[in-house]
């Protein structure tokens, strides 16, 4: 099955990004596909490569980048939401791309299931 994922909150403040990541990992392990992960609202902050969490904590941004590299997961950051919050190509982490809201609608249409994680 093909899953579309929507992440509406940034890293660390809310558990949303962690839950979404764990969901994706479990789905892939079960042989499903992640059609796309779309980052919206403060969720765009998951895509900054300027994040430097303490060494004994998980690195949420890198974890998403690795998921993209290992499983060819399409990580899309909403351009309008990103520009509002200072996320641009120059500080975008590896594996993410910035695109329009149409990518979220397209994901809703193409994926078998759409799951939202937020506050």
């Amino acid at each position: 099955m093909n899953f579309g994922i929507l992440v509406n909150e940034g890293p660390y403040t809310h558990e949303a990004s962690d839950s979404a990541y764990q969901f994706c990992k479990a789905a892939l392990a079960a042989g499903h596909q992640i059609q796309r992960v779309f980052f919206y609202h403060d969720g765009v902050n998951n895509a900054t490569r300027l994040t430097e969490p303490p060494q004994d904590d998980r690195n949420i941004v890198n974890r998403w980048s690795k998921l993209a590299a290992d499983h060819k997961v399409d990580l899309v950051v909403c351009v309008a939401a990103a520009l509002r919050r200072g996320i641009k190509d120059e500080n975008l982490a590896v594996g993410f791309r910035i695109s329009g809201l149409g990518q979220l609608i397209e994901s809703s249409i193409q994926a078998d299931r759409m799951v939202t994680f937020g506050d």
Partner: protein
Amino acid sequence: MSEGQVKKIMYVNRKAPYGTIYALESLEVVLIAAAFDQDVSLVFMDDGVYQLKKGHQTKGIEVKNFQPTYRALDDYDINKLYVEKEALEARGLSEDDMCVPVEVKTAAEIGKLMDEQDVLLSF
């Protein structure tokens, strides 16, 4: 891309405007969604009904008043707007307080509509 495929997509709005950005950014999604020719509906529950309360005046907080955009939805052929009856009552509001034509439904009726959707997007 997705020629001919029409899905029932419901946008669930449960948050008040201005206190957080969810209402505005949800509306931005809906406007984009209009271009995809899907079967779109919007539902306003809980504090989400405040998004449609007539008469927003945002000059004093220096935030853009996006209420006129709800009135433009009809031009995009988005006209299935449902408002939760219990939410209106709990807030001392009625259908007359809404800035656009809506259909008032009970939470259970909205739940039934949710069951029929292919996709639910909540912000």
